[in-house]
Protein backbone atom coordinates (compact mmCIF):
# COMPACT_ATOMS: atom_id res chain seq x y z
CA UNK A 1 0.00 0.00 0.00
CA UNK A 2 2.79 2.34 0.94
CA UNK A 3 4.56 1.52 -2.31
CA UNK A 4 1.41 2.37 -4.29
CA UNK A 5 1.11 5.72 -2.55
CA UNK A 6 4.74 6.49 -3.28
CA UNK A 7 4.17 5.55 -6.91
CA UNK A 8 1.15 7.85 -7.22
CA UNK A 9 3.08 10.66 -5.54
CA UNK A 10 6.01 10.12 -7.90
CA UNK A 11 3.75 10.27 -10.96
CA UNK A 12 2.12 13.47 -9.67
CA UNK A 13 5.49 15.09 -9.10
CA UNK A 14 6.78 14.08 -12.51
CA UNK A 15 3.62 15.27 -14.23
CA UNK A 16 3.72 18.62 -12.47
CA UNK A 17 7.13 19.41 -13.89
CA UNK A 18 8.72 19.54 -10.43
CA UNK A 19 12.03 17.93 -9.68
CA UNK A 20 11.94 14.18 -10.12
CA UNK A 21 12.11 12.21 -6.89
CA UNK A 22 15.33 10.34 -6.19
CA UNK A 23 17.30 12.91 -8.12
CA UNK A 24 20.21 14.04 -5.99
CA UNK A 25 21.01 16.94 -8.31
CA UNK A 26 24.44 18.51 -8.12
CA UNK A 27 25.00 16.98 -4.67
CA UNK A 28 24.74 13.54 -6.29
CA UNK A 29 28.00 14.20 -8.12
CA UNK A 30 30.11 14.39 -5.01
CA UNK A 31 28.16 13.18 -2.01
CA UNK A 32 26.17 10.10 -2.94
CA UNK A 33 27.80 7.45 -0.79
CA UNK A 34 30.79 5.12 -0.60
CA UNK A 35 32.21 5.08 -4.07
CA UNK A 36 35.22 3.55 -5.77
CA UNK A 37 38.02 5.44 -7.43
CA UNK A 38 36.35 5.30 -10.86
CA UNK A 39 33.38 7.27 -9.52
CA UNK A 40 35.69 10.11 -8.45
CA UNK A 41 37.25 10.07 -11.91
CA UNK A 42 33.72 10.57 -13.25
CA UNK A 43 33.36 13.72 -11.12
CA UNK A 44 36.75 14.96 -12.30
CA UNK A 45 35.75 14.14 -15.90
CA UNK A 46 32.77 16.48 -15.62
CA UNK A 47 34.67 19.25 -13.86
CA UNK A 48 37.52 19.16 -16.41
CA UNK A 49 34.97 19.00 -19.25
CA UNK A 50 33.21 22.15 -18.06
CA UNK A 51 36.55 23.92 -17.49
CA UNK A 52 37.88 23.03 -20.95
CA UNK A 53 34.63 24.10 -22.62
CA UNK A 54 34.57 27.52 -20.90
CA UNK A 55 38.20 28.01 -21.96
CA UNK A 56 37.33 26.91 -25.51
CA UNK A 57 34.54 29.51 -25.85
CA UNK A 58 36.92 32.28 -24.70
CA UNK A 59 39.62 30.84 -27.00
CA UNK A 60 37.34 31.22 -30.04
CA UNK A 61 36.99 34.96 -29.34
CA UNK A 62 40.73 35.44 -28.62
CA UNK A 63 41.84 33.64 -31.79
CA UNK A 64 39.40 35.78 -33.77
CA UNK A 65 41.67 38.76 -32.96
CA UNK A 66 44.32 37.57 -35.48
CA UNK A 67 41.96 38.70 -38.24
CA UNK A 68 42.71 42.33 -37.18
CA UNK A 69 46.45 41.91 -37.91
CA UNK A 70 49.83 41.38 -36.31
CA UNK A 71 49.70 44.29 -33.80
CA UNK A 72 46.35 43.29 -32.31
CA UNK A 73 47.40 39.63 -32.12
CA UNK A 74 50.73 40.43 -30.46
CA UNK A 75 49.14 42.77 -27.92
CA UNK A 76 46.75 39.94 -26.97
CA UNK A 77 49.61 37.43 -26.76
CA UNK A 78 51.64 39.85 -24.62
CA UNK A 79 48.69 40.12 -22.26
CA UNK A 80 48.16 36.33 -22.17
CA UNK A 81 51.84 35.56 -21.55
CA UNK A 82 51.57 36.86 -17.99
CA UNK A 83 52.61 34.06 -15.57
CA UNK A 84 49.10 33.49 -14.18
CA UNK A 85 47.60 33.09 -17.67
CA UNK A 86 50.45 30.73 -18.66
CA UNK A 87 49.77 28.69 -15.50
CA UNK A 88 46.07 28.67 -16.45
CA UNK A 89 46.94 27.38 -19.93
CA UNK A 90 49.01 24.60 -18.38
CA UNK A 91 46.02 23.66 -16.22
CA UNK A 92 43.84 23.52 -19.34
CA UNK A 93 46.44 21.25 -20.96
CA UNK A 94 46.46 19.01 -17.88
CA UNK A 95 42.64 18.95 -17.86
CA UNK A 96 42.61 18.05 -21.56
CA UNK A 97 45.10 15.19 -21.01
CA UNK A 98 42.98 13.76 -18.21
CA UNK A 99 39.63 14.28 -19.97
CA UNK A 100 40.92 12.71 -23.21
CA UNK A 101 42.34 9.51 -21.74
CA UNK A 102 39.67 9.04 -19.13
CA UNK A 103 37.19 9.59 -21.97
CA UNK A 104 38.83 6.82 -24.02
CA UNK A 105 38.52 4.55 -20.97
CA UNK A 106 34.82 5.42 -20.67
CA UNK A 107 34.22 4.74 -24.39
CA UNK A 108 35.95 1.34 -24.10
CA UNK A 109 33.81 0.40 -21.12
CA UNK A 110 30.63 1.75 -22.74
CA UNK A 111 31.29 -0.48 -25.75
CA UNK A 112 31.82 -3.50 -23.51
CA UNK A 113 35.61 -3.81 -23.72
CA UNK A 114 37.75 -4.48 -20.66
CA UNK A 115 34.80 -5.34 -18.39
CA UNK A 116 35.28 -9.12 -18.44
CA UNK A 117 32.83 -11.81 -19.51
CA UNK A 118 29.34 -12.10 -18.04
CA UNK A 119 29.23 -14.59 -15.16
CA UNK A 120 26.60 -16.41 -13.12
CA UNK A 121 25.86 -14.31 -10.04
CA UNK A 122 27.09 -16.87 -7.49
CA UNK A 123 28.03 -15.81 -3.96
CA UNK A 124 30.60 -14.40 -3.17
CA UNK A 125 29.85 -11.97 -6.02
CA UNK A 126 32.69 -10.45 -7.99
CA UNK A 127 32.70 -6.91 -9.29
CA UNK A 128 33.66 -5.97 -12.84
CA UNK A 129 35.43 -2.94 -11.33
CA UNK A 130 38.52 -5.07 -10.64
CA UNK A 131 38.55 -6.10 -14.32
CA UNK A 132 38.23 -2.48 -15.44
CA UNK A 133 40.97 -1.22 -13.16
CA UNK A 134 44.01 -2.00 -15.39
CA UNK A 135 42.51 0.22 -18.13
CA UNK A 136 42.09 2.99 -15.58
CA UNK A 137 45.69 2.61 -14.40
CA UNK A 138 47.03 2.72 -17.98
CA UNK A 139 44.89 5.79 -18.80
CA UNK A 140 46.14 7.60 -15.68
CA UNK A 141 49.80 6.72 -16.41
CA UNK A 142 49.47 8.19 -19.94
CA UNK A 143 47.80 11.28 -18.44
CA UNK A 144 50.60 11.68 -15.88
CA UNK A 145 53.30 11.42 -18.59
CA UNK A 146 51.53 14.05 -20.73
CA UNK A 147 51.00 16.40 -17.79
CA UNK A 148 54.71 16.06 -16.89
CA UNK A 149 55.73 16.81 -20.51
CA UNK A 150 53.38 19.82 -20.57
CA UNK A 151 54.89 20.94 -17.26
CA UNK A 152 58.42 20.81 -18.73
CA UNK A 153 57.20 22.89 -21.71
CA UNK A 154 55.50 25.36 -19.36
CA UNK A 155 58.63 25.73 -17.20
CA UNK A 156 60.71 26.11 -20.40
CA UNK A 157 58.51 29.03 -21.48
CA UNK A 158 58.79 30.56 -18.04
CA UNK A 159 62.61 30.50 -18.24
Amino acid at each position, binding site marked *: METDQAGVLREKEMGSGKKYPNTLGLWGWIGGGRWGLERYLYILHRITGIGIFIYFILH*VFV*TFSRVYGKEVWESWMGFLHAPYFAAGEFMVFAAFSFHAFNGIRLVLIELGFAVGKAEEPIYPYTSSISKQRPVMIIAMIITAILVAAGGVDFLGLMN
Partner: protein
Amino acid sequence: MQETKYWTWHMISGVIILILLGIHMITNHLSSLLGWFNPLGGESTEWGNLIERGKLMAYVIMYVLLLATVLYHGFYGCRKIIFELGISYRYKKVTNILFIIFGVFLFIIGCLATFTFYIIANAAL
Protein backbone atom coordinates in the same frame (compact mmCIF):
# COMPACT_ATOMS: atom_id res chain seq x y z
CA MET B 1 16.26 6.28 -29.71
CA GLN B 2 17.05 9.88 -30.58
CA GLU B 3 18.98 10.28 -27.31
CA THR B 4 21.03 7.15 -28.10
CA LYS B 5 22.00 8.72 -31.43
CA TYR B 6 23.08 11.94 -29.70
CA TRP B 7 25.10 9.91 -27.18
CA THR B 8 26.78 7.86 -29.95
CA TRP B 9 27.76 11.09 -31.75
CA HIS B 10 29.09 12.41 -28.44
CA MET B 11 31.45 9.40 -28.22
CA ILE B 12 32.45 9.62 -31.90
CA SER B 13 33.13 13.36 -31.61
CA GLY B 14 35.25 12.65 -28.51
CA VAL B 15 37.55 10.33 -30.49
CA ILE B 16 37.81 12.86 -33.36
CA ILE B 17 38.64 15.61 -30.83
CA LEU B 18 41.35 13.46 -29.24
CA ILE B 19 43.14 13.33 -32.61
CA LEU B 20 42.57 16.93 -33.76
CA LEU B 21 42.97 18.63 -30.39
CA GLY B 22 45.96 16.36 -29.80
CA ILE B 23 47.64 17.95 -32.87
CA HIS B 24 46.64 21.41 -31.61
CA MET B 25 48.05 20.68 -28.14
CA ILE B 26 51.31 19.27 -29.56
CA THR B 27 51.62 22.44 -31.66
CA ASN B 28 50.97 24.83 -28.81
CA HIS B 29 51.80 23.17 -25.52
CA LEU B 30 54.70 20.88 -26.38
CA SER B 31 56.39 23.31 -28.78
CA SER B 32 59.55 23.82 -26.71
CA LEU B 33 59.96 20.02 -26.41
CA LEU B 34 58.96 18.87 -29.90
CA GLY B 35 58.80 22.00 -32.07
CA TRP B 36 56.37 20.34 -34.49
CA PHE B 37 54.15 22.40 -36.81
CA ASN B 38 56.14 25.55 -36.03
CA PRO B 39 58.25 25.94 -39.20
CA LEU B 40 59.95 29.19 -38.13
CA GLY B 41 60.91 27.85 -34.71
CA GLY B 42 60.34 29.77 -31.48
CA GLU B 43 56.93 29.98 -29.90
CA SER B 44 53.89 28.54 -31.62
CA THR B 45 51.93 31.78 -31.16
CA GLU B 46 54.48 33.95 -32.99
CA TRP B 47 52.94 35.73 -35.98
CA GLY B 48 55.30 34.06 -38.52
CA ASN B 49 54.32 30.56 -37.37
CA LEU B 50 50.69 31.58 -37.43
CA ILE B 51 51.02 32.72 -41.05
CA GLU B 52 52.85 29.53 -42.06
CA ARG B 53 50.14 27.32 -40.57
CA GLY B 54 47.23 29.57 -41.55
CA LYS B 55 48.02 29.48 -45.28
CA LEU B 56 47.58 25.69 -45.43
CA MET B 57 44.12 24.47 -46.44
CA ALA B 58 44.73 21.30 -44.38
CA TYR B 59 44.87 23.48 -41.25
CA VAL B 60 41.69 25.33 -42.25
CA ILE B 61 39.82 22.03 -42.67
CA MET B 62 41.26 20.70 -39.41
CA TYR B 63 40.20 23.77 -37.44
CA VAL B 64 36.68 23.86 -38.89
CA LEU B 65 36.23 20.16 -38.13
CA LEU B 66 37.69 20.65 -34.65
CA LEU B 67 35.39 23.61 -34.02
CA ALA B 68 32.30 21.66 -35.06
CA THR B 69 33.16 18.56 -33.03
CA VAL B 70 34.17 20.46 -29.87
CA LEU B 71 31.01 22.57 -29.99
CA TYR B 72 28.84 19.47 -30.36
CA HIS B 73 30.74 17.50 -27.71
CA GLY B 74 30.81 20.41 -25.24
CA PHE B 75 27.22 21.53 -25.61
CA TYR B 76 25.94 17.94 -25.49
CA GLY B 77 27.98 17.34 -22.31
CA CYS B 78 26.62 20.51 -20.65
CA ARG B 79 23.09 19.60 -21.76
CA LYS B 80 23.43 16.17 -20.20
CA ILE B 81 24.64 17.64 -16.90
CA ILE B 82 21.81 20.20 -16.82
CA PHE B 83 19.17 17.58 -17.67
CA GLU B 84 20.47 15.34 -14.90
CA LEU B 85 19.66 18.02 -12.36
CA GLY B 86 16.00 17.17 -12.90
CA ILE B 87 14.63 20.20 -14.73
CA SER B 88 11.17 20.17 -16.31
CA TYR B 89 10.43 19.45 -19.98
CA ARG B 90 9.87 23.15 -20.73
CA TYR B 91 13.32 24.13 -19.41
CA LYS B 92 14.88 21.23 -21.30
CA LYS B 93 13.43 22.65 -24.50
CA VAL B 94 14.68 26.15 -23.68
CA THR B 95 18.16 24.71 -22.94
CA ASN B 96 18.19 22.91 -26.30
CA ILE B 97 17.21 26.03 -28.23
CA LEU B 98 19.72 28.29 -26.42
CA PHE B 99 22.56 25.80 -26.90
CA ILE B 100 21.80 25.42 -30.61
CA ILE B 101 21.71 29.22 -31.13
CA PHE B 102 24.92 29.82 -29.15
CA GLY B 103 26.64 26.85 -30.83
CA VAL B 104 25.78 28.03 -34.34
CA PHE B 105 26.92 31.58 -33.43
CA LEU B 106 30.31 30.30 -32.18
CA PHE B 107 30.69 28.09 -35.25
CA ILE B 108 30.12 31.07 -37.57
CA ILE B 109 32.58 33.25 -35.58
CA GLY B 110 35.23 30.50 -35.64
CA CYS B 111 34.79 29.74 -39.35
CA LEU B 112 34.91 33.43 -40.20
CA ALA B 113 38.22 33.80 -38.33
CA THR B 114 39.73 30.69 -39.94
CA PHE B 115 38.76 31.49 -43.55
CA THR B 116 39.59 35.21 -43.24
CA PHE B 117 43.01 34.36 -41.82
CA TYR B 118 43.58 31.86 -44.66
CA ILE B 119 43.13 34.75 -47.12
CA ILE B 120 45.36 37.08 -45.04
CA ALA B 121 48.09 34.43 -44.71
CA ASN B 122 48.15 33.67 -48.43
CA ALA B 123 48.16 37.40 -49.31
CA ALA B 124 51.20 37.83 -47.02
CA LEU B 125 53.29 35.50 -49.22
